[in-house]
């Protein structure tokens, strides 16, 4: 692999890893709420969270572009007050990866939380543990394998993210080009050999992430 290809893979891995860091706190909170609480509008939240799974990724990308573009209030706030540019920068890559992989993590994490017997959490409360301690010492450790498996699945999804990324971050070599975008560009340029090398590398990474995820899930259900 050329230095450029290695750099693209490194950038993609780094962005996907950062996206995972970004989705863990909201993902855990959402998954826990969906698994353990009944509240008005729960079905709507569930549907909204799952929506990026079934929408065309470019459509999700367009929504994000509108949401974070300079013409929206949120976009202006992020640009003027926080002095951050999202669109057509690495932050756009991160945003697209995070939004597209969040549903997979939330769905897996929700199942992982639901599989923790509620009885154990209740008994922990009667032993003097406040809800935060119950979550940290009972719920989280018992759901850990399922959560890790879900995170790896989301990571694999983020590695391959294309549609939303190209709309939000563009395909700027050296700045926002991930492996999926680079593969697309190489095919367009007729450089099929280079495209195939990147495809192979992407497949190996995705295989490792998915395989580990499946193994963890199998062990958590054993």
């Amino acid at each position, binding site marked *: 692999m050329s230095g450029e290809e290695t750099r693209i893979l490194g950038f993609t891995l780094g962005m996907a890893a950062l996206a995972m860091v970004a989705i863990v706190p909201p993902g855990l909170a959402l998954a826990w709420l969906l698994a353990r609480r009944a509240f008005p509008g729960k079905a709507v939240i569930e549907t909204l969270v799952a929506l990026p799974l079934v929408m065309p990724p470019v459509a999700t990308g367009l929504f994000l572009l509108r949401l974070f573009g300079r013409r929206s209030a949120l976009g202006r706030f992020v640009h003027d007050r926080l002095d951050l540019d999202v669109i057509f920068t690495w932050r756009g890559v991160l945003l697209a990866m995070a939004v597209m992989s969040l549903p997979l993590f939330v769905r897996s994490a929700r199942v992982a939380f639901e599989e923790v017997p509620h009885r154990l959490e*209740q*008994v922990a409360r*009667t*032993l*003097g543990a406040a809800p935060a301690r119950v979550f940290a010492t009972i719920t989280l450790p*018992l759901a850990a394998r399922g959560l890790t498996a879900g995170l790896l699945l989301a990571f694999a999804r983020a590695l391959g993210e294309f549609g939303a990324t190209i709309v939000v971050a563009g395909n700027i070599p050296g700045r926002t080009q991930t492996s999926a975008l680079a593969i697309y560009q190489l095919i367009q340029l007729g450089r099929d050999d280079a495209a195939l090398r990147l495809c192979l590398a992407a497949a190996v990474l995705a295989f490792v992430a998915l395989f580990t995820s499946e193994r963890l899930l199998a062990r958590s259900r054993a």
Partner: protein
Amino acid sequence: MKLALRGLRLPLPRFTLEVDVELRGRVAGLFGASGAGKTSLLELIVGLRRPTEGSMYLGGRMLADVAARRFVRPERRRIGYVPQDGALFPHLSVRRNLLYGASNGDGAKRLAEIAAVLEITPLLDRDVDGLSGGERQRVALGRALLASPELLLLDEPFAGVDRPLRGRILPVLARIRDELRVPMLYVSHEPEEILALCDEALRLDQGRIIAHGTPAEVLAAPISL
């Protein structure tokens, strides 16, 4: 113990639990057929469910008072709860299960004392996975005791334990009563267990208390009204 349950109501799917009683015994036995509301009553007392009406006081300490909009959360009630299956934490060793609710200060000393009473000292460094039914229940009991409860609720703790083993566990419960002096509310289907352990008994049917008195009186009372 002095546990006052005043005008408590909790709607359940098939009937409404309605309880008005004051328990004063060292060990009170709670009888009733499956589905009579026994577990729901224990969950009310320990704070895992909220009553829709009524109040609860333990030794003068308020646990819940619907009219006053007061509700003490389970972690602040100091009421131990041993459910039917023991509910041991599968990712913790026996020792760490036992110490889960213990205060940091005298935990180790009390661990040794309680483990000796329950005859589980040799199990302390084992995983909970390999424990037998009787061992699991004794560990669950020990874990509840180490949290220094002012009242211990036992929900048919030995339902899954075979009869010879039950015979060995009854004296252990008697030692908890006599040596550790922890008041208990004990749910059981077995008249001989209630007679052996309890000095007060209740019978619950369809969410209502249909008999309350000494174990002998309650056992002799007609079951249907």
